[in-house]
C-alpha cells in the first residue's frame, strides 16, 4: 500500500473533564446503598459508558478477526509443531547463515536509508520552516506530491531512470562522461535510492512540524546574548528540533525494517530483506513455521525499537507504511 499515513497527526483524546464522574464518586464513597437517586444516576452513567464503548464494537471485531486472529495464528505456528508441542526449532533455524545474512542486510539498509534521510531531510525541513509562508507552501507541495503518489509508481519511475538503458545512463553516455553504462539498479545502491525517495517525507514532516513550533525570538535572544549564528543554531535550534529528528528517525527506521515493495523491485533479487525472506520462505519453500518465526521476530524488533525510542525521547507512537 502507499505511504499514506498522516505522520503529523496522532490520536489524542479530549482532556479529562474537570468534574469527577458520578459513578466513580459514588463507588469510592462506598455509598452504593446510600441514596437510591445517586445510585440510579451512577448506574445510568455506567450504562452510558458501555453504550458509548459499544460504538467501537463493529470496527473492533473487524480488526480483531482480520488482523489479531491471523497474527495470533502466526505466533502459534512459530512456536508449536504440527503435533501441538512447544518447540524452538523455528527460532533456532533463524540462526542459520541464510537468515542471519538477511537480518544483516535489512539493518544495513535501514541504517543507510535513515542516515541519508537525516542528511537530506534536516536541511530541507529547516529551510521549509524558515521560508515565508507562500514559498514554503510551494516547496511543501514537492514533498507532499511524492507522499501521495503510489510507492509502486515511484519505484517504477526509479527503475526507468536507473536501469542499464535508462534515462540517467543514456544521458551520461550522450554527454561522454562515461563509456560503459553504470549498474545503478538491481543492487544495494538502487534500493537505497528508491527507499530514500519513499522515506524522505516521513523524515521531513515530523521535523518540519517541530521546527515550525520553535519560537524565532529564541534565536534573536541567542544573538542578543552574543552567540554567533552557528552557535545559536547549534545550541538553540538544533537542540529544540531534536525530538522531531528522533521521531523522524524512528519512523523511517521502523518502516525500513518491514519494507517489501521497493527492495523486491529495485534489488534485483540481490538485496534479500527480512520481509522478502518471509514471502520467499512461504512462496518457494512452503515453510510456514520458519516464515512465522521470521514474522514474529520482525514484529518484536519493530515493537522494541518503537518502545525504546519512546522511553528515550518520550515520543508518541506513530505509524508505519509498507
Amino acid at each position, binding site marked *: *500500500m*502507499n505511504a*499514506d499515513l*498522516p505522520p503529523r*497527526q496522532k*490520536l489524542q*483524546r*479530549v482532556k*479529562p473533564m474537570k468534574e469527577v464522574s458520578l459513578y466513580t464518586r459514588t463507588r469510592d464513597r462506598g455509598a452504593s446503598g446510600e441514596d437510591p437517586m445517586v445510585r440510579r444516576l451512577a448506574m445510568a452513567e455506567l450504562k452510558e*459508558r458501555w453504550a*458509548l464503548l459499544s*460504538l*467501537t464494537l*463493529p*470496527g473492533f471485531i*473487524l*480488526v480483531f478477526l482480520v*488482523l489479531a*486472529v*491471523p*497474527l495470533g495464528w*502466526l505466533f502459534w505456528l512459530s512456536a508449536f509443531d504440527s503435533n501441538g508441542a512447544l518447540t524452538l526449532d523455528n527460532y533456532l533455524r533463524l540462526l542459520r547463515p541464510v537468515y542471519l545474512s538477511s537480518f544483516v542486510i535489512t539493518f544495513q539498509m535501514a541504517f543507510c536509508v535513515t542516515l541519508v534521510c537525516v542528511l537530506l531531510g534536516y536541511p*530541507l525541513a*529547516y529551510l521549509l520552516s*524558515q521560508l515565508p509562508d507562500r514559498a514554503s507552501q510551494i516547496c511543501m*507541495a*514537492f514533498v507532499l*506530491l*511524492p507522499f*501521495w*503518489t*503510489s*510507492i*509502486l*509508481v*515511484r519505484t*517504477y519511475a*526509479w527503475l*526507468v*531512470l536507473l*536501469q542499464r538503458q535508462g*534515462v540517467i545512463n543514456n544521458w551520461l553516455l550522450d554527454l561522454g562522461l562515461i563509456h560503459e553504462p553504470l549498474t545503478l539498479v538491481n543492487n544495494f545502491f538502487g534500493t537505497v535510492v528508491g527507499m530514500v*525517495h519513499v522515506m*524522505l517525507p516521513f523524515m521531513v514532516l515530523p521535523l518540519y512540524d517541530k521546527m515550525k513550533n520553535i519560537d524565532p525570538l529564541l*534565536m534573536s535572544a541567542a*544573538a542578543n546574548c552574543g552567540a554567533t*549564528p552557528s552557535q545559536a543554531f547549534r545550541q538553540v535550534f538544533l537542540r529544540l528540533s531534536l525530538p522531531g529528528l528522533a521521531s523522524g528517525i524512528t519512523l523511517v527506521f521502523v518502516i525500513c525494517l*518491514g519494507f*517489501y*515493495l521497493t527492495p523486491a*523491485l529495485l534489488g534485483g533479487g540481490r538485496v534479500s530483506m527480512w520481509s522478502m525472506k*518471509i*514471502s520467499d520462505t512461504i512462496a518457494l519453500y512452503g515453510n510456514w513455521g520458519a516464515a*512465522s518465526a521470521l*514474522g514474529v521476530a*520482525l*514484529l518484536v524488533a519493530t515493537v522494541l525499537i518503537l518502545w525504546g525510542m519512546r522511553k528515550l525521547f518520550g515520543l508518541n507512537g506513530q*505509524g*508505519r507504511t*509498507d
Partner: protein
Amino acid sequence: MFKLNQAVTPTQITHAHRLWLYALVGLILLFLIIPCLIVIPMSFSASQYLEFPPREWSLRWYEAYLGSPEWMMATWVTVKVAVISTCIATVLGTLAAYGLSQVRGGAAKLVNSLMMLPMLVPIILVAVGVFFVYSRTGLNNSITGLVLAHSVLAIPFVLIAVGNGLQGYDMNQEMAARSLGASRPWAFLTVTLPQLRLSICSGALFAFIASFDEVVIALFIVGGESSTLPRRMFANIRDQIDPTVAAVSTLMIVLSILLLVAMQYIKRLERRQQH
C-alpha cells in the same frame, strides 16, 4: 526582489550566506519531484522502448491500456474495492472515534490500541497472516476478502482524522441539543456529524488512497480475474518493462494530484472553520 545581503533571520544570516542551502534544497526537491513526473512524458512515447525525451509522440500505450480487457478488469476491481472499503472504514472508524472520545479508562485504551494496530504491524505480516486465515476460510481470491483486509488497513486513518476533529469540537453543543429534547443519536446526527464532516472527508481520502495503492496484500491473496491494478502493475514491472505501465502510472499520478489538491482544500476549509 530580495537582495542577497539582506538578513534572513534575526541572527543576521544573509541570503548570500544561505546560497549553499538554497542550492542543496533545490537539488533535494528535484530528487523528490522528478520520479513523480518523468513517467508522464514517457508514457506518450511512440516507441517500443521507454525513452526520454520521446522522439515521437503517440497515444498507443493509452490505447493499449484502454483496449485490454485485463487492465480494464483490474481497474474496475481496484475502484470497487477502494470505494467499498472506504465506506466501511469511514463508518466504523467514525463510530469508534466518537465512542473513544467520550470514554476513558483501561477498556477504551485497549480498544484504541488494537484499532491502531494495522498501522504498526509491518504490511508483509498482515499479508501473510491474512493469506493463512483466508486459505482456511475460502476467502482467498475473493473481492470480499480484499475489501475486509483493506478496510482494516484504512480504519486507523479514519480514527486519527476524526479523533483530531473531535478534539477541536465542543461537546457541549451536543449536550445543549439533548437538553432541548433531542435523543443522543439524533443530536449526534444533526449537531456533531455536520461539524465533523471535514475531518471525516480527510479520513475517507486517506482510506481511499490506502486501499487504491495497496499492493502487498493483493499480491498474496488475489490473482487472475480479481487482480487489482497495483497487483497487475507489480507483476508487469517485475517481468517485463512494458510502456503500458507508464500510461497506467501517469493516470495514477493524476489521481494522486487530484487527491492532494482535495486534501489541501479540506485543510483550508478546516482552518477557516476554526477562525
